[in-house]
Structures are given as structure tokens and as C-alpha cells.
């Protein structure tokens, strides 16, 4: 089992949606990067992701990885946030039959899974239809 350090260092992104924005071309990196993938500029300003967006595509996971067994079936989608950033995450509090591409969602802070009996609880963002 991994140590908690891996989870701990990702807290700024998972809990607070911290990203950075290229000072030259405006590309928003999430997670933050050291060099812009679009224009190779190295200067950024800190920013926070938009907390609303729309579903670009989705699926319902019926055969899950081990740590998600007690949650299956669950929906996962790629959401385009209002600032143009695209994120992968679970879509919750919804009927699978009613999910649609283009549907509006907001980001909420939820438990993602727990890492075994002695492990930590892992939190992060999920999408909830509006």
C-alpha cells in the first residue's frame, strides 16, 4: 500500500481545484504545470477552476477497480467546465437513464474511496447534475 504522501501532495487540486493559467496564451493547466503545453511559456498565474460545466461524454462503470467495488455501478464522465478545462470524474446523485451529453453539472466535494482498513479516506471532486 502506498504511503499517504501521494494523496497529501494532491490536496490543493483535489480539495481546492487549484490550477495555473499561462501568462502568454491563457491556457489553464490542471494540475498546474511548469511549462505551457500550448506555447512553452514558463510563467503562470495561480487560478481556481470554474465550479460548473457540462457533460461532454459519460459511461456507467459496471466492472469496477477493487477499491470502487462497493460503489458500482457508478457514472463517470468528462465535463467541460465553464472556463474550458476538461475534467474526468464521477457523476453522482443522478439516474443513469436521465444522463445526457450537454447536461449542466456543478462540482461538489465528496469522498472518492477509502484506502483499505487502516488506510485514509480519499476525498475529491465529483459532478452533480443541476
Amino acid at each position: 500500500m502506498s504511503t499517504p504522501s501521494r494523496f497529501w501532495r494532491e490536496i490543493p487540486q483535489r480539495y481546492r481545484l487549484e490550477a495555473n493559467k499561462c501568462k502568454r496564451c491563457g491556457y489553464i493547466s490542471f494540475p498546474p504545470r511548469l511549462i505551457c503545453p500550448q506555447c512553452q511559456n514558463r510563467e503562470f498565474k495561480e487560478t481556481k477552476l470554474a465550479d460548473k460545466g457540462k457533460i461532454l461524454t459519460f459511461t456507467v462503470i459496471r466492472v469496477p477497480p477493487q477499491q470502487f467495488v462497493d460503489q458500482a455501478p457508478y457514472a463517470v464522465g468528462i465535463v467541460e467546465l465553464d472556463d474550458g478545462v476538461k475534467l474526468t470524474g464521477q457523476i453522482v446523485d443522478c439516474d443513469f437513464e436521465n444522463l445526457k451529453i450537454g447536461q449542466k453539472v456543478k462540482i461538489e466535494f465528496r469522498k472518492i474511496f477509502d484506502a483499505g482498513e487502516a488506510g485514509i479516506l480519499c476525498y475529491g471532486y465529483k459532478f452533480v447534475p443541476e
Partner: protein
Amino acid sequence: MREVAVIGVGMTKWGELWEKSLRNIFVETALLALDDAGVDKIDSMYVGSMSSGLFVGQEHIASLLADYLGQVPVPSARVETACASGGLALRLGFMEVASGMSDVVLVSGIEKMTDVSGYEATYALGTAADQEYEGYHGITFPGLYALMARAHMEKYGTTREQLALVAVKNHLNGSKNPLAQYPFEITVDSVLNSVMVADPLRVLDCSPITDGAAAVILCPVEMARKMKKPIVKITGSGHATDSISLSSRKDITWIEATYQAGKRAYAMANKKPEDIDILEVHDCFTIAEICVIEALGIVEKGKGGKAVEDEVTYLEGKIPVNTSGGLKAKGHPVGATGVAQVIEIVKQLRGEAGKRQVKNPKVGMAQNMGGSGGSTVVHIFEKE
């Protein structure tokens, strides 16, 4: 650069090979390739393997396998680009022979996937996706391709039946390949009624978990001519990357790395999509074959589903795709897949493909892909 030929190929029956170890699967396969080439010594070797560490708890397999093949102290390197590891091994072997650094190079791929449970295999395969921003949220590989499938259906009107037809076609071809893991036919109904894995993809849309290896021998064309071997030349090689996270791509339905690698291979071989007679592509899921033939320019963007429905990609069609049975029916021991694709192309070009032989092909292409499209390797082959 020197011209490079494939002079030997080796592959054994793929499947759940519980009675065989990783090293024995490799050596049996490599010996077949050496025998086919008529050589017993090599100058160098490459092994494509995605995750021997997670699948059999063994790293450092390049030296292990060189030793068991009786070839130490030749240089041996393991290469990894997820499921494109085998294709990359070929590219590195090709570059080594083309550059003049070595004459006879063995290129192989291997994965032994059934020594671990289904959960452990799912985990190992999942490491080819972005673990921190995809895997963390419970997405699986069938899930990632399901996201692509739904977006493709929405954007282009690709149908559920068209996806199923990819699996039906590949099993039809695979039923003629005695080395395939699942050499039998399936129907559209059986695909549509199989267990749902990640909507809209069902278990018969997915390539299986497989133990297997594949090996080929490369040498300069000049040398092959002196050896009086049937010569299949590697005339184009392209390799490209993309973000491994699907959500970072501009268009979720388009595999840019495949387009880029294809573009480079076409340019090097001075060929166009319409020059390709036979094509092996990375159908890890049915939707993948549809996206890949679009990215390689074989069909127009959005027309991949229609192409299989119109039987353009069937064995008797205009451009037969996955005559071997593809990953779907032949099996998908991830690191070995890219090399097995080459073997199918070589057999077809030599006229040795048995019941699935295409009539007199001259130019073949192999496309091998890692993850959800984060890397692609494309090669073009021509009969001399």
C-alpha cells in the same frame, strides 16, 4: 540509412497458458523466429513488455530473456509504451539495423497476464491511464473507451450495431487463425446480449486478458538477399505521443497520436492511405478500430462505423483490417500485440496466411497504440 528486412517470424498459440512461465513462453516463440530466419545468433534484442512487474512480479526481464535464449552477453533492452510496447520494440530494432549499429536483431513482445487475479490485471492495465486524474476517480480502460464510444455515437451517429460488427468481423477472421486465443465466430446478437462492462461497451466489445509472446528477426536487406530469404521490407516507421489523460484532448473522438504516427510513416514510405492493401490495427475495444481507421485516413472522419457496416474492412473488402482476428479474437498480451501485428502482415505479404490469405497484397500497415491513445507506433511493410 540501410534498408531493413523482416526475415523471421515466430508465434505460438495464445491463451491462458497456466502451465507455462514468462521465460518459457518467450523462448519458445523466439526460437521459432530464429528457425524461420535460419540464424542461431543475434547481435542485439528488444523486448516490449508493458508491466512484467505488476503481472508476474519480475523486472529486469531483458537480461533474463537474453540469458534463457542463450544469447548473453548481447545487449538486450526492455521497452515500454503501455500496449504499444511491442510496436516500439520494432521501431528501435529497425533503427538499430538501419543505422548500421547491428546486423541481426531480435524484436519481441511478451505479457503473461493470467498469473494475477482479475482485479490485479485491471489495476496493472489501469496504470496506462493517468493514475492521479483518471484512475483516482474509478475509471477503467473499458470505461475510457466507452467515453470515446458515446462521444463518437453522439457526434457522428455511429451505431451500437456498427460497434458490434467490428467484433463480429474480427472473430470471423480469427476463426481462420489457429494461433488465436478465441478462434471462433460470434454474432451481433451475442455481442449485444453480452454482459455490460461500461455503457455502451459490453464484454464482447473488449479484447481479452491473454498470455503470449511474438518475435521477429530483422537484418539489412542486403544480407537477407544473400541468405535467399523471402524479403519483407520495413519502409515506413512513425511514432507519436499525446496526453495520456483522455480529458486533455481537444477532440475525444479523434486519436491524434495515431494520425501523427501515421503521417510520419506514410511520408517515410512515400505512400498514401489508398496504397495500403492490408492493415492490422489496435482494436483493444471495438470503438478503437473505428477511431483508428479514421485517424489513419483509411476512411473519412466519422465514417469508421459505416465502413465496417459496408464490409469495406472485411477480408474480401477493399481494405481488409485485422485479418489475424485483431486483439479481439487473437488475444491481447499487451506487450506482445505490436509484434504479433507485424507477424500477420509478414505472413500475408509472403502468402502464408492460410485460410485468411488476402489475394496478393503488396503493402501492409501495422498500428499499435498505448493507453487511450497516449502513444501510437505505425509501420509500413512492402514485399520485395
